């Protein structure tokens, strides 16, 4: 059974929800990403999402744009992130998902990306600029390598597309909480809970929500409606601010605080 599917099944049995933290790989360097990933896995993360740096991240807000730029300044590209996944896989069984834009994968080769990802223990890909209409070549390559393609659904999608996305996605469906780009927000849309209920009724797969979620309070408020919560920019902001052991501890504590409201009662 795939690692992602197993995690959702085990959490469900325990009455827990998944915490899915995101950091950009190579921000500020690969050694820090490795240390952060292992710390997050130890402190309550259930699935890890690693961003692949890209020059033109058009679905991302300023926080993740800056992280992508810092990683690129260190020369980090797709192959480095795949290698990093391999190092992490040697030390942890936590599911690893890469979030990256399509062009670097296209240039590396879709089959080559999928095959190397599988060899290095990557479980899935989220590709924000690859809607289902354009995804067939990648889905074929990913399926061959047994890599999950995780689709995003948005508040603009509408029932028909959500149903299709729920049918095509593997692992879980990633619901984008806001009509907008990534980035920590102090307030989430007031109708988010209602939207999540609607989506839940339309799809059979596990459902995770992300974009803009930055505090344990927000996580607690959303937990009843989903199977998992993605937190990205709020962690990346800490990576931008701190260094060394102080950073590792701060992120570890933050992960523990975010996970607390997701644990079973």
């Amino acid at each position, binding site marked *: 059974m795939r690692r992602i599917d197993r995690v959702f099944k085990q959490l469900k049995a325990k009455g827990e929800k998944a915490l899915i933290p995101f950091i950009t790989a190579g921000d500020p360097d690969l050694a820090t990403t490795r240390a952060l990933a292992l710390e997050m896995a130890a402190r309550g993360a259930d699935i890890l999402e690693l961003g692949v740096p890209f*020059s*033109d991240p*058009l679905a991302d807000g300023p926080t993740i744009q800056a992280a992508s730029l810092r990683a690129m300044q260190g020369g980090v590209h797709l192959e480095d992130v795949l290698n990093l996944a391999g190092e992490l896989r040697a030390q942890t069984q936590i599911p690893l998902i890469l979030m990256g834009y399509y062009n*670097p994968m296209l240039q590396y080769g879709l089959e080559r990306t999928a095959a190397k990802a599988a060899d290095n223990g990557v479980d899935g890909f989220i590709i924000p600029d690859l809607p289902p209409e354009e995804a067939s070549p990648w889905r074929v390559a990913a399926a061959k390598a047994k890599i999950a393609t995780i*689709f995003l659904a*948005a508040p603009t999608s509408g029932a028909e597309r959500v149903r299709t996305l729920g049918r095509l996605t593997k692992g879980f469906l990633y619901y984008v909480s806001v009509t907008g*780009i990534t980035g920590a927000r102090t307030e989430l849309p007031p109708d988010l809970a209602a939207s999540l209920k609607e989506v839940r009724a339309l799809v059979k797969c596990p459902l995770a929500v992300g974009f803009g979620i930055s505090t344990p309070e927000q996580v607690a408020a959303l937990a009843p409606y989903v199977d998992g919560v993605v937190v990205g920019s709020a962690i990346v902001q800490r990576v931008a601010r701190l260094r060394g052991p102080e950073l590792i501890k701060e992120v570890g504590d933050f992960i523990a605080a975010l996970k607390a409201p997701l644990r079973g009662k």
Partner: protein
Amino acid sequence: MLPDRHGRYGRYGGRFVPETLMPALLELEEAYRRIHRTPEFRQELSWYLKDYVGRPTPLYFARHLTAELGGPQIYIKREDLAHTGAHKINNTLGQGLLARRMGKTRLIAETGAGQHGVATATVAALLGLSCDIYMGTEDIRRQRLNVIRMNLLGAKVVPVESGSRTLKDAMNDAIRDWVTNVRHTHYVLGSVGGPHPYPMIVRDFQAVIGQEARAQLRRRTGKLPQCLVACVGGGSNAMGLFNAFRDDPVRFVGVEAAGHGVHTQHHSATLVAGTVGVLHGAFSYLLQDPWGNIQEAHSLAPGLDYPGVGPEHAWFKDKGRAEYVAVTDTEALSGFNLLSRTEGILPALESAHAIAYLKRLAPEYTADDIVIVNLSGRGDKDVDAVAEAMEVSVEAY
């Protein structure tokens, strides 16, 4: 005619965008197909094109330039005489009228040279829509005149600080804005690039250039031209000229910006020297490193300073329907001077690339042949940059 129902021109094109935008692109395509052929829309658009934009623009026989170059008869399609000073208004007017019928209340756009920004701001003022224009800070510096024009027209110019601070980065931020405000905002994309249906919509609204030129030349000479020449950044003025001749035995030449030279790191010659990949929603040629990161483009002409190109041009290139060449900053400056001095017309630096290439093209033709060059915009916006560049080259000697 292409694109197919997936928005593809052969292997090029498509819709590589975040899910949030997919419904908006589908809605736009549906609205465009439903509205653009209706008599009401066509009447409204042609009324504005005639009485507001001043179309048809002249097809001018450039006698002195023809004599100077000693080759074919050169006709200039005077898009510089369209309202706002460039061909961009053909598209922004069409999209503005479409957006209004779709119930959108706000227009956004990216701009490089500022011509598309000015044209969008103009249409927003005309139609009573609010308007934000994304522009790289490097271009704001280079094209101050157009920034002032946009402000005077009531648009807000949003400075973009990321990347190379030019057109590519402005487009990233315009797309990010659209992702956020898609429900009430229409994104007026300015070239034949980006995700489907934009390359088709922009081509169709710009096709008036070639339709007029073809009819004007036939009326005057009874002939077709041997060759069409236009500059290519994203490629809208070139596609607008080429489209009406696509089934005729007429040669198409697209002139890209070679900047400091296509063998340097400082050029914008996407079709001449690029490789295929995905940027800004479309599969096409682009400038990228081996890892798929987009490279910064360079051109003295801000409207050509873009590392991508419209997918239909990519298809034309592969099919051999059009040929694509590149001229350097220095050649473009000499093209600027050539047209200014022979014909008394200051071309936009972008269009000066097409003029410059005529020098290389002329020896291939005789006085019986006809070449039409698209003068996509006027050069007032560029006089500071040209003066600066000339001084620099004077000091170098």
